[in-house]
């Protein structure tokens, strides 16, 4: 399995702060592990819905990463949300997963 725990603010610097999307809760709530985990599981669920039209999926991994599975069975360990989308793009031969693409939105809503 490739390891894509990345290296920049979008791609998740190893040892750096959490991805911006994970730090938005109330500070007191962020400290509550159960709420963080619940949020993480919900993000995983929503990620799977967003990736489904591209025949990809993720599993939450040890509360620290996501395992992205591509349409051909390749899997990649991704440090955060941004790394998931960067790797998903790579698995699609460099074609981005454009959330503005009408065909994608139709598949998402179908």
């Amino acid at each position, binding site marked *: 399995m490739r390891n894509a725990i*990345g*290296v*920049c*603010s*979008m*791609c998740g*610097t190893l*040892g*750096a*702060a959490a*991805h*911006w*999307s*994970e*730090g*938005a*809760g*109330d*500070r007191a709530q962020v400290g509550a592990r159960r709420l963080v985990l619940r*949020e993480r*599981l*919900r*993000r*995983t*669920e*929503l*990620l*799977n*819905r*967003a990736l489904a039209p591209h025949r990809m*999926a*993720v*599993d*939450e*991994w040890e509360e620290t990463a996501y*395992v992205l599975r591509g349409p051909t069975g390749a899997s990649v360990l991704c440090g955060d*949300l*941004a790394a998931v*989308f*960067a790797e998903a*793009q*790579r698995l699609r031969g460099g074609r*981005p*997963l*454009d*959330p*503005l693409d*009408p065909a994608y*939105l139709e598949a*998402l*809503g179908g």
Partner: protein
Amino acid sequence: MSARIPLTLVTGFLGAGKTTLLGELLRDSLLADAVVLVNELGEVPLDHHLLRQVDEQTVILDSGCVCCTIRTDLVDELRDLEARVHRGELPRFGRVVVETTGLADPVPVLATLMSDPMLASHYAADGVVCVVDGVNAPLQARRQPEWTKQVAVADRVVLAKSDLPGADPATAAALVRAANPACALIAADHGRVPAGELIGLGVLAADRRADEVRRWLDAVGDGTGHHDLGDHHLGVHALALRFDAPLDWTMFGLWLAMLLQARGDDVLRVKGLLDTGAAGPLVLHGVQHVIHPPAHLDAWPDDDRASRIVLIVRDIAKADVEASIAAFERTARAPVRAAAGRP
């Protein structure tokens, strides 16, 4: 943690007058304890005891996105400066000013500050200052995409050379407004601007974030005011989004991360106050791929409790953004299945 060292980024196209401005700023006591990093020692001499020249060295990291271009020169130089202060070879400095080259993309400097663990813990972006050439701005804006990028990411824009023959400050100002409707635009007086207008902005400081975002929201309004000039001359325009019902942050964060991966080069700025169901709003602030950690405010800054977001974009239609967010909202509201990989 207290007292990260503020870092001001001075950008602007070739010949705009960055070094002249910097030379004037360095006379001010505000910059007495500043380290100044320049890429090139130009024809305008700079007299400062902590002036350092750095060769612009970038490393494009594996994923190849713009924000993954790390300015290794800055990392090395700032680490070296810290080490020399600790060894007693240099006086302790309280501020850093980085001048980019005229063709540089300023975003990697911001990305570098956030992504290098040492730099992120020691330095905080104070603000981005862009110098615009009042004579050549129309030509540069039309021909050089770097111009638009530099202006769009600025917190303050200095209009220089507007007193020279051939200057067209009105057109230059309109172009600046098209790329960056909310920035403070300051006319230089013979290359001079009061240092306090540009230094010590603290645009990301917790107590100033909401004001910065509100300035944007007020300036952009419903997003229809700047389309003509922006679209025709620069290919950029402002999108103003409004959501009266609370936004699902998990969904929105996912959507935005996906958009930035796919279209990050076309999203120049993101600012917003979001109602995520908490007592106060979430403040969102981003420059291209570089999204600063969102912060919750204790209370709303005004009576309007709707989520309001401004995007400065290139070739992205508001209707497409709204349709996409609506589709993601519908998807997020669908009944929850068992989470993958978990009991």
